[in-house]
């Protein structure tokens, strides 16, 4: 290389500066794994001082499960089988914590082409790996939720399509039930599936029915936090009650109305939660699907089951009354 002395020094200085100040970790590493030269950024990544790091090898700080893959590729590199390699692996930080790095290794050769040492570029990807892990957990959780929802839909279908029911009616009811399920899903998604307030659940379930006539529903009650499961089942139950009221109950006649109320009552260290659906000025009706139908099964078995409580369905002369009672440890979610 024909350089004037000054220019050569200037260039060498520039190369040093590039190595030292690179925004990725840089190192020259012997074939035995000893660090020959390291830059500030690498020291930053692994937490060692320059003196400390130069005393140890990369094997010392590499996670044992990642070491063989690294050594294999290093061997292939030195033999000349590959020109360079890149891998993601784990180092132990000086404080003992695991860090993920992206490692790219090339080779420095002498004038005769004999390998001299490795040139490694090391990038801290711990945060990216953590994000990938969060995403994986989220996708797994979503998959589980979808499977669960499909199982719920299967159960709704199973109970909606029964031998003795005309298919067109069953289809309309099934669609309405899916709609109720979907509305509850929207609500839970807004709440990041942490649960939902009982008022929002009832409001959402009544939305389609209120479009027809707002004035006939009287809804009142304190805030009570419901688990996602309880919220889903209650939404389905309110949909059944409202559908039934419109078709056969208090909302099928001009003067009928529905009162929906709930409360939380402290009792000897526990809370009693009561939810009531009371129809007024309506005809006396029973759940038309009778026992074993989806509506009555949902109201008398599934909802009290999911609330770990009890339910009573009364066919009063002025209209249907439904009462759900559950005992909870003080202030716990349902």
């Amino acid at each position, binding site marked *: 290389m024909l350089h004037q002395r000054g220019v050569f020094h200037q260039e060498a200085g520039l190369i040093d500066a590039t190595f030292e100040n690179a925004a990725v970790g840089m190192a020259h590493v012997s074939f035995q794994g000893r660090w020959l030269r390291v830059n500030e950024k690498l020291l930053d990544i692994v937490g060692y001082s320059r003196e400390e790091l130069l005393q140890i090898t990369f094997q010392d700080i590499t996670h044992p499960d990642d070491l063989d893959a690294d050594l294999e590729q290093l061997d292939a590199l030195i033999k000349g089988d590959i020109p360079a390699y890149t891998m993601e692996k784990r180092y132990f930080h000086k404080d003992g914590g695991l860090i993920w790095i992206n490692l790219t290794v090339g080779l420095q050769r002498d004038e005769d082409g004999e390998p001299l040492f490795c040139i490694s570029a090391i990038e801290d990807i711990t945060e990216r790996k953590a994000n990938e892990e969060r995403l994986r957990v989220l996708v797994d959780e979503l998959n589980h939720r979808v*499977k*669960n929802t*499909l*199982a719920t839909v299967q159960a709704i279908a199973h109970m909606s399509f029964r031998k003795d029911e005309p298919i067109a009616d069953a289809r309309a009811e099934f669609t309405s039930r899916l709609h109720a399920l979907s509305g509850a899903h929207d609500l839970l998604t807004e709440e990041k599936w942490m649960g939902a307030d009982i008022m929002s659940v009832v409001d959402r379930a009544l939305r389609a029915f209120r479009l027809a006539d707002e004035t006939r529903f009287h809804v009142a009650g304190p805030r009570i936090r419901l688990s996602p499961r309880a919220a889903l089942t209650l939404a389905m139950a309110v949909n059944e009650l409202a559908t039934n009221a419109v078709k056969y109950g208090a909302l099928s006649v001009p003067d009928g109305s529905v009162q929906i109320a709930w409360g939380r009552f402290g009792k000897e260290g526990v809370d009693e939660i009561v939810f009531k659906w009371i129809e007024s000025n309506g005809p006396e009706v029973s759940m038309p699907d009778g026992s074993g139908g989806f509506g009555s099964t949902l109201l008398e*078995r599934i909802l009290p*089951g*999911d609330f*770990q409580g009890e339910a009573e369905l009364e066919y009063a002369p002025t209209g249907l009354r439904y009462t759900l009672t559950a005992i909870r440890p003080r202030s716990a979610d349902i």
Partner: protein
Amino acid sequence: MANPQNLLPEKVLIVEDEFMLAVMLQDILETLGVRQVSHAATLADALDLVAREPFDFAFLDINLGKENSIPVARALADRDIRFVFASGYDAKFVAEGISAPLLRKPLGLDEIRTVLTASDFDTQSGRISRIG
């Protein structure tokens, strides 16, 4: 865990914390002709039932809210009662020294019938073998 005659079990336990799914499975089993179907929604209730009732088959939802049904599986295995897991999750925590077939939710009607009348469960692979 053998069922040499490929008979339908008479007393079946369902362990499932979602009542909607339990009610459906109970209806399916009764329609198939199972004489007695019991349901437990919590670990404590399930263990209590297993201790009291001579079941000859069980469906175990793995995830029961904050609990899981692995202790029920152990209690059933101790009594030589056949069972299957049913879950929306992968088979990850089935591998705690217990091996039983895993049915993925939603459950298929055919697979329910198949596991009920299976001649034997291969407890190593979790596979079901059938005669004929």
